[in-house]
């Protein structure tokens, strides 16, 4: 059995309490949500926080709610809730697609939306999906709330815009008309992290793409997005050729590294295939075809 180093534990009563505890225990304390990223790192002694501040009791961080023309995800919403949500199924199929291939039911029952974003693992599927969606992250400190576009949230592998005494409290996703979305991941086995994954959000005006969001996971794409491919799609006809071209551009601009999941040329190839497929499916969904 792998065992972590010694650490202290505090159960936060509410948001204000959690923020106070984080401030009191300083930069070596960590909030713990689902624990499915943090605890393995502690057991491997890659992380040795002095104190864990447990935020699982913070009911104010729960819930998936429609809030005007946006959908709000509380930071403590579990993967499983996203997967089961009717609101998500209706408006944000990219998230349902992604959740189906994130880890396994045990991890999904505990792992959270906030934890996924804050972990900032370069392979995190939700980071790619929220980036494609152009989401906004709500960060709370004792001084109040601030919002950061998700595309500015990640500062690099395992680094985010959140300071040690702050918490992510919610993620807001805009609902756009005539828009469809999709996500696809290639993995070596169910529950494995992505070899490569892509998510697309496509808004149509008739036959023309008026806006495209393309997220990429596990291939070294800056801020998890394929900005050049998005740009190329704007105003383009929603055809297989355009989507293949977007895939080609995304493949060219991402920066995958070789590991046991595959060599660089393969990962680039996958980006091309997956971007084209997800754009195609997103457009079909925007047209109400699937």
């Amino acid at each position: 059995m792998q065992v972590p180093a010694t650490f202290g534990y505090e159960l936060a009563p509410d948001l204000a309490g959690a923020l106070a505890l984080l401030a009191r225990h300083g930069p070596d304390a960590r909030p713990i949500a689902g624990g499915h990223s943090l605890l393995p790192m502690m057991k491997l002694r890659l992380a040795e926080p002095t104190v864990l501040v447990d935020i699982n009791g913070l009911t104010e961080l729960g819930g998936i709610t429609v809030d005007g023309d946006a959908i709000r995800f509380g930071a403590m919403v579990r993967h499983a809730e996203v997967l089961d949500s009717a609101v998500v199924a209706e408006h944000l199929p990219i998230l349902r697609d992604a959740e189906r291939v994130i880890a396994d039911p045990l991890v999904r029952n505990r792992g959270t939306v906030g934890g996924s974003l804050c972990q900032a693992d370069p392979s995190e599927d939700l980071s790619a999906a929220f980036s494609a969606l152009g989401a906004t992250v709500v960060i709370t400190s004792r001084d109040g709330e601030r919002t950061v576009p998700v595309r500015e949230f990640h500062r690099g592998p395992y680094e985010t815009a959140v300071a040690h005494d702050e918490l992510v409290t919610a993620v807001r996703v805009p609902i756009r008309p005539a828009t469809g979305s999709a996500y696809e991941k290639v993995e070596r086995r169910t529950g494995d992290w992505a070899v490569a994954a892509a998510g697309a959000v496509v808004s149509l005006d008739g036959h023309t793409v008026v806006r495209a969001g393309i997220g990429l996971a596990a291939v070294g794409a800056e801020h998890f997005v394929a900005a050049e491919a998005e740009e190329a799609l704007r105003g383009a006809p929603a055809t297989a050729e355009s989507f293949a071209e977007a895939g080609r551009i995304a493949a060219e601009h991402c920066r995958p590294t070789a590991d046991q999941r595959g060599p660089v040329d393969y990962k680039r190839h996958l980006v091309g295939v997956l971007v084209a497929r997800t754009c195609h499916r997103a457009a079909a969904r925007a047209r109400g075809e699937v």
Partner: protein
Amino acid sequence: MSAGLEGVRPPEEWIRAAVDTPRGYGAMKRKEDARFVRGRGNYVDDVVLPGMLHGAVLRSPLAHARIVAVDTSAAEAHPKVRAVITGEALAGLGLSWMPTLSQDTEAVLATDKVRFQGQEVAFVVADDHYAARDALDLIDVEYEPLDPVVDATRALDEDAPVVRDDQDGRTTNHIFDWSSGDRAATDAVFAQAQARDDERVVTADILYPRVHPAPLETCGAVADMDPVTGKLTLWTTTQAPHAHRTLYAMVAGLPEHKIRVVSPDIGGGFGNKVGIYPGYVCAIVGSILTGAPVKWVEDRSENLMSTSFARDYHMRGEAAVTADGRLRAVRVHVLADHGAFNATAQPTAFPAGFFGVFTGSYDLEAAHCAVTGVYTNKAPGGVAYACSFRITEAVYLVERLVDVVAHDLGMDPAELRMRNLLRSDQFPYRSPTGWEYDSGDYPHTLQVALDKAGYDDLRREQADLRRRREAGEDVPLRGIGLAFFTEAVGAGPRRSMDILGLGMADGAELRVHPTGKAVLRVSCQSQGQGHETTFAQLVAAELGISPDDVDVVHGDTDQTPFGLGTYGSRSTPVSGAATAIVARKVRERARIVAAAMMEANPEDLEWSDGSWQVKGVAGASRTIAEIALAAHSNLELPDGVEGHLDATCVYNPPNLTYPCGAYVCVVDVDPGTGAVTVRRFVAVDDCGVRINPMIVEGQIHGGLADGIGMALMEAIAFDLDGNCLGGSFMDYLVPTALECPSWELGETVTPSPHHPVGAKGVGESATVGSPPAVVNAVIDALAPHGVRHADMPLTPAAVWSAMQGRPLRTDLAIR
């Protein structure tokens, strides 16, 4: 039954198995499962003794480095630490090195060098597991890094660093050369095939990468050296408790009667728990030094990185064939990567295990193989993971090679196999490499599998899909793969098979209590095979009682007779035979008592319907329960009976048993991503007589899943610094239910002529037979892309790279 399920019934046989206990053979729920499903198993890590301390191993982060200094002072100063043991300390006791099961030596704790990443360097004993782990960080080891030997194909290069410079005069990494078969005769057939227009030579380079058995329960031990009695009790994860006891006695100089090895419930072995690991020895030394029991249980990464791996065979296979598809000869050269210490577990005379069975199921004129073993800076072990002593490698080689032949000749692989399979009238069959196959009807078994799979329809569907793809439709690449395997299990005849001089026989003792309930004690050990059920059924069938009335005791050397244990699918062939024979001995004793009871002549009795009957006298019969009570009563006992029915036996198998099987796998490959989906798997096994068909099928299910794992995702690769790239379950992937189709099983039954009940082993059959079926299916799917071979594991990246004509080397880091 809930309303929604009305009308849905499980198969009749399962219902019966759940309700009735068969008198002897037949489907029956496993007796041991009652405790497992209630969480009442007792594994090594469940053992808690008063005053028990906890051990942890410090491991090398480097693959190859000289040890300059080890400073343990800070660890020793930790308030909860009771002892810190180093290689130097062990050297003082003469225990820093230990013999391996292959006449080599292996470091217990490193003294001079570390030779693989994860090698044991020091051992800490502390009050609790947490403190022991904390103290590891307080040990300061100064290393001087050395160039590692990682690529096995470079291990014999002139300038390769020498891994084993501890051995006097050693200047290379060469361990052994071993060959089998008639080289001259084989070369002659190949020369002809090369020269003639209507024959050819087909060659393929085939890697069976390093994989790991990865049992869910990792290895561990609780050592309790009683300072008063001097008796060592060792609870440990071992598949061979008796062999371990004898080895501890020989190596550590402890008197053998003062050692008790207990292998309690074991959560999977697959060969991983055959050897003796440094951690066990350290736990024993820790207990001796502290006078308290010491528990050591490794974690997942330690298990994957340091304990017995399997395979790692780089093979070149050649087949001499006629243009119309007759296999004439097979020639193989193998480079075997044994890691840093030659610690494979196998019969002494077989350094490449039973690889000599590589001629498989085919009628060849000649065959020859040559195997060269080398040292590298990788974990030692080998011959683990349900491999039947390297038959996994042998079957993979020949079944892959036959498919390459089919590809090159443009023949259907089923037809090619059917043409060349041994015929039933050739049994018993002596193979060109000297193995005597006991029985089988191979063409029949293959035909049953082809029919069950609907082979011709599958080929038609495949052709249709290929046409549609060519016409531009977005349909998957369909592949159909076959494998026909011959296994050789149940090692083995004492005259030719031993491990470190211990003959590979197994013992059984059977006691019948006065009320007719029986206790069987066997030398083999179950790691999930269901021995407590199967062996009870064997006894029950021989004595005419219920399996519920037979208790099977195993895994405790103080309570069971000597024998070599469970691996290589040997339990039923060897211990099962011992069980049947010991039960027959009991029955013969019972005959004498029954004769006395009925005042008849023993010769006038016949065993019929579960009791001894006086021939021709209706109603004159006695059951075992009646006889057992009489044997312990005041009945006047005739000569030859002492007042009980108990018996013992040691079974020395006259030959191995040779199970076989025909497997058909159907896959789809996504041409865009290279991802493989296994659609169907048909497995027709012939393991002779099936004692408990349900358990047999369970064993096959597990082995088929193993095969999908190895074929598609499992491998331990190393980067050029010797870092292990498969050291966790995030990196070393084992299949889940979602990667497995609903298995379609079938059977043929050809009893073994020399086994007392006609049974053959089955534990490893599916692990041996399934990898080539899956790989052959994937390669078949890729045929339109000109792919002829690609190495396991066929991950999406490996498949795609093969389609690009740039197959991956799966033993090294992907670059």
